[in-house]
């Protein structure tokens, strides 16, 4: 199968076949990172711009390493050091970057739809590194890769996603992605964190974390943002932790072979206890490792696919 997508904008626009191709490619890419010399010449001469309007450690570093392991040149731009502080609009910034002929622009932005807007304006491939509360497709893909690696499949698994679903792009992309690949997704959290109509993504909803954990093959905890307290989503971190946090006691009711995941950065002692985060069921660091492989796969596919075939 050939990969013909110009952009990776969200999980909704990827087909089952495309997701399988990405995951298969990522599985192969993973080996490169285990070599003594972690570099292949595949994308030599290609330019990747990492354009991050929002703070990021994991995603930006992961993309940077992924591109470099494939020999692409990378350039990082962050909001605070760019012309955005001078009032340049996203559209003008996009046009200016395009004029420098990059091959890929990875964008993270606090506004939902910003990568879609950019994709309409530039010839370079756009990869969404997270847009507002909308989508974080590379996170969902690395989560799927991790689950598939450890469970051998995605189809038929029960996935519980717990926390602030309303404000989470990771939750949305995982709901769409895992459901598309045949998993049963249940989202759990207090009603204040449950966005209206989330069931239209094909997931079931509970406000009881124990119910969500009881049947789950995979439990995915979401980061609680402290500033949400000001929007009355929860009274205190203490109460949240007691009512919705994942700890060893709560995990006793889970399946024996349950997998614990978290997109990071984790709040130790809030949504997840240190014992669970560092415990035997945790795949949190495997997710990070696989993030590099998935991003290598995506760069390879959008740049190496039919669209960019070398005339020689």
């Amino acid at each position, binding site marked *: 199968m050939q990969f013909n997508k110009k952009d990776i904008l969200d999980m909704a626009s990827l087909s089952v076949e495309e997701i399988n191709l990405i995951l298969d490619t990522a599985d192969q890419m993973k080996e490169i990172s285990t070599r003594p010399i972690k570099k292949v010449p595949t994308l030599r001469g290609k330019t990747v711009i990492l354009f991050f309007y929002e703070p990021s450690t994991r995603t930006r570093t992961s993309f940077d390493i992924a591109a470099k392991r494939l020999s692409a040149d990378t350039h990082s731009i962050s909001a605070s050091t760019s012309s955005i502080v001078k009032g340049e609009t996203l559209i003008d910034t996009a046009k200016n970057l395009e004029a420098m002929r990059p091959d890929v622009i990875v964008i993270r*932005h606090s*506004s939902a739809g910003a990568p879609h807007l950019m994709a309409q304006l530039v010839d370079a491939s756009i990869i969404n590194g997270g847009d507002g*509360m909308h989508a974080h497709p590379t996170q969902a893909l690395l989560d799927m890769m991790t689950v598939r690696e450890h469970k051998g499949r995605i189809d038929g698994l029960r996935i519980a996603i717990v926390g602030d679903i309303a404000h989470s792009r990771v939750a949305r992309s995982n709901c769409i992605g895992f459901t598309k690949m045949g998993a049963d997704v249940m989202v759990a959290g207090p009603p204040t964190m449950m*966005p209206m109509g989330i069931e239209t993504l094909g997931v079931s909803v509970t406000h009881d974390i124990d119910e969500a954990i009881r049947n789950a093959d995979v439990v995915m905890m979401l980061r609680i943002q402290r500033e949400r307290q000001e929007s009355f989503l929860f009274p205190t971190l203490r109460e949240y932790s007691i009512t919705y946090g994942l700890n060893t006691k709560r995990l006793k009711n889970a399946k024996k072979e349950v997998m614990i995941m978290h997109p990071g950065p984790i709040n130790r002692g809030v949504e997840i206890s240190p014992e669970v985060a560092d415990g035997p069921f945790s795949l949190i660091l495997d997710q990070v490792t696989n993030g590099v492989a998935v991003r290598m796969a995506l760069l390879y596919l959008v740049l190496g696919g039919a669209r960019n075939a070398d005339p020689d």
Partner: protein
Amino acid sequence: MRILIKNGNVIDPGNIEGEMDILIEDNKITEIHPRHTASDGPAADTVIDASGKVVVPGLIDMHVHLREPGLEYKETIESGCLAAAYGGFTAICTMPNTNPINDNAQVTRYILKKAEMADTALVYPVAAISVGSQSKNLCEYAELKEAGAVALSDDGGPVTNSELLRRSLEYAGTFNLPIISHCEDIALAARGVMNEGAVATQMGLAGSPNIAESIGVMRDIAICEFTGSPLHIAHVSTSESVHVIREAKSRGVPVTAETAPHYFTLTDEAVRSYNTNAKMNPPLRSEKDRQAIIQGLSDGTIDVIATDHAPQTCIEKEMEFDMAANGIIGLETSVPLSLRLVDQGALSLSQLIEKMSINPGRIIDRMNRIQTGYDANLTILDLEKTFTVKADQFKSMSRNTPFDNWEVKGKAVLTMVNGKIVFEDL
């Protein structure tokens, strides 16, 4: 100057209806006769053949934002009035959120002076309820009325101080100035940039819930009922609001309400592609709300169709969705979009004319009638004319419409203001 409008199907609801010839001398309607089959009718300098067309009292859009003074790059009084004329409106009410805000007689007079120079549509200024629309002090209503203001509104946002709204209603009642209320609970609207619902959830955009509007409607109706002074509710978009207004009317509360064509034509699905030309406040709602709005129009709960014409340029619109400005323009699309309700059987043509001319005219005390002695403000409609909406050919200076390239049916083909033909496409 004598103008004879011949053979038109004249519809002035509650007044006259039928094939009539209308004679206009200078700025007045002077004679109305049943169709002259035998003769050519009275002698005239100009004869307009309105065969197959509908002649109605001049349409009035009682909710229009022109951007002058202050933001003339978006819309001037001149361009807005021309857009009105092309859209079939003989009169428009201009909202006060200009820069400076129309909260004093000088600004009101400036707007009227500019309108007089434009000399196309009639402009009826709506002045602010509170100074700077800040909900702190009342404006000088007596002087504003004297200067030509026809109503009061802090539109763009709600009156946040309930006591000020109470006193405003009490005080404005003395001067026969209706209060037009933008109903919204700002805290509930939170940071919403579109309707709260499944579409917002799927798009990852913050939503504003229906109750952010309807709670505002409930409060304002309670104050209206308490004071007994007339209140007009702007841009109704939710089923809950329709319900509350319907109940209030059945109790005899002196409340009237308007909605805009986009609320009965579109739903929040129109936002799907992060289309900033489908972003406005209140936002496009669900299909259930759209149906409730149509029902409210049909049963008389909603008295008026007004456009909330809100010009914005690419500088405010071509960007990330959550950062883009609210508002769409409507003057040049209102007639065909509203006529769809007649086509769908939701409204009779007479009901539509009531909502686009008679009722707004009554609320602001500036009625257009097809009756001898009245100013000759009328609109001729061609119900069968189909055309493609082309935003780049609008007379408005702005292009922010979600209806660009829509195939529509029904069009104003002549607009007459004070006996002068300001637009003709017969």
